[in-house]
């Protein structure tokens, strides 16, 4: 029997039991659809993170003081005071691949305006910080180098802060807000950035000159972090090397000793978030593939029923000259077609599902070709694997007793 005949035969016998065929396919459809949806949503999430990171500044470099061990106790990240004004100056003046540098001193205070107050973190930064972090201003201006030099009591605030404090709809520019006891003039409002990947509100923020924070609030002379931007994304590794060299020589670290600071480029952040996302995607796909196995068992079950039901037909076919292999191929083709058609429908539904969800979450819609190809192969394999035993059972029937079967 040739392939055309096998195919026709399988299609016509599947059509004879439309409802049963549909229900059997449903298992495969659900299995494949969920695998496809999970994988493409996982990839969409990865892509989403990537685009968000590049909106944060893909050439951004973070420099943090290293963890300090005090008597064997790890004091946590950024616990040392190794970064200071001197480092900032060297990074500004002695580098080739570093475009901009801004320190950051973080504190948090209750903000008061009129009868409203709002808890908020205040970051002391330099005038270049907005460029490095890809923030832009909605209105007003950023403070200048001059403001930094003279510890000016000015600040730039985020949209959430505006909403919380200026409830009467007044223009925040030029208004004076109090940070604890210190009054500061609002000179700029940031354009909203929304939540980041971790769900943090990036607009609940206040920027002030770092000198102001150091001298007027915290009374310190070190930085919590230094942000820098490489001249381009490709050069961020070079910039990191450069920074390492400068900081080591500034801090007098001998060859062979560990750095007393830590440098993170976005590349590392991206790859670590990507690997988490990948793991989650794999996990979801693994869970989804369980339903695929259940679907496959459904096929096997129905194929067994079909074979028993059609014992007489099998006997007749053998009597008129079908070889055992013909019978086996007949039922195998049926189960393969069953799972392949189910698979195609499943891929279709999976794409619709992931399209819907990604629209809902405002994620990019990703079609994972790899997932589609793999699902297709899995379907074919499912058809063969779960169709094999029923087909073999059919092929091994004795024609005489099959003909007599009632």
């Amino acid at each position, binding site marked *: *029997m*040739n392939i*055309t*005949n096998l195919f026709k035969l399988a299609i*016509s016998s599947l059509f*004879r039991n439309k409802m049963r065929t549909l229900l059997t396919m449903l298992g495969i459809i659900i299995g494949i659809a969920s695998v496809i949806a999970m994988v493409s949503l996982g990839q969409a999430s990865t892509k989403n993170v990537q685009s968000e990171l590049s909106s944060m500044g893909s050439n951004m470099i973070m420099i943090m003081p290293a963890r300090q061990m005090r008597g064997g106790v790890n004091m946590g990240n950024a616990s040392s005071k190794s970064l200071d004004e001197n480092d900032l100056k060297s990074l500004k003046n002695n580098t080739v691949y570093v475009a901009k540098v801004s320190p950051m001193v973080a504190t948090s205070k209750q903000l008061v305006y009129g009868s409203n107050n709002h808890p908020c973190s205040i970051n002391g930064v330099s005038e270049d910080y907005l460029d490095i972090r890809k923030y832009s201003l909605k209105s007003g201006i950023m403070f200048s180098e001059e403001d930094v030099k003279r510890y000016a009591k000015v600040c730039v605030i985020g949209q959430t802060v505006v909403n919380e404090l200026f409830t009467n709809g007044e223009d925040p520019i030029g208004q004076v807000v109090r940070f604890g006891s210190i009054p500061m003039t609002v000179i700029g409002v940031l354009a909203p950035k929304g939540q980041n990947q971790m769900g943090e509100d990036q607009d609940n923020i206040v920027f002030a000159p770092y000198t102001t924070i150091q001298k007027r609030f915290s009374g310190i002379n070190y930085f919590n972090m230094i942000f820098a931007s490489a001249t381009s994304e490709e050069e961020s590794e070079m910039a990191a090397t450069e920074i390492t060299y400068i900081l080591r020589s500034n801090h007098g670290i001998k060859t062979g000793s560990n750095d007393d600071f830590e440098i993170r480029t976005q590349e590392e952040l991206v790859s670590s978030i990507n690997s988490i996302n990948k793991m989650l995607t794999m996990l979801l796909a693994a869970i989804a593939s369980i339903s695929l196995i259940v679907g496959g068992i459904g096929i096997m079950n129905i194929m067994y029923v079909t074979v028993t039901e059609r014992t*007489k*037909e099998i*006997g*007749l*076919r*053998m*009597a*008129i*000259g*079908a*070889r*055992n*292999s*013909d019978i086996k191929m007949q039922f195998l083709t049926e189960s393969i077609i069953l799972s392949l058609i189910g698979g195609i429908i499943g891929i279709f539904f999976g794409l619709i599902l992931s399209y819907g969800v990604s629209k809902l979450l405002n994620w990019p819609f990703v079609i994972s070709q790899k997932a589609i190809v793999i699902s297709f192969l899995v379907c074919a394999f499912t058809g063969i694997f779960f169709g094999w035993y029923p087909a073999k059972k059919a092929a091994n029937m004795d*024609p*005489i007793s099959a*003909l007599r079967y009632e």
Partner: protein
Amino acid sequence: MSNEILKIEKLERVFRVGSEDVHALRGVSFTVQSGEFVSIMGTSGSGKSTLLNILGCLDTPSSGEYIIDGVSVKSLSKNELSELRNRKIGFVFQNYNLLARTTALENVELPLIYNKDVPAKERRDRAVAALRLVGLEERMDHTPNQLSGGQQQRVAIARALVNDPVIILADEATGNLDTKTSYEIMSLFQDLHGQGKTIAFVTHEPDIANFTTRKICLRDGQIIEDKPIVPLSAIKALEEISKMPTE
């Protein structure tokens, strides 16, 4: 043109049931010449079904020789037996064994699907020709449930003819039919016999056997009678029952 189609010699078939050996056939020998219309008679348990299975290459003898159209069956593999059934034998069963929800034409085409040498176009032509031969050309698009018992058996006979077999094996082919329809089917068989087909007809009804040209009677796995007879005409028999008053 009188050559040997079938030749069986000292055919034995032993089944093992539990710890006991059951001898279904005990040394059966006969030959069938081309163009014969043989009836094989016997009560149930006489071994006629076993004999038919062996003649149909569905079963192999425990000992003895079976030669069909010059081929010794004894040494053939399963696949070779399948091919032999496909090319040389046409089966007609008591319960027709047509595929449900499949048209008469497709049912008749079935044996040719398993014959690689027959292309799709020729398959259809031959199936139509076979249906014409049994007088069902008009109904080739009907499915079995749209056909009467007699018509279904005609489709089955067309299916047995389509591969141009050397012998047609009929197993109680009239067993499910009323007398009139039985006679119609027998008349069809007589027509086919008239056209030179070789037919072996297994039955337990003596009046059906009377339409054949040779009677072989089996009892307890042995031939007790094997004689040529002058066949009755099925058409005449049909005329007679049509004269009888209907109740």
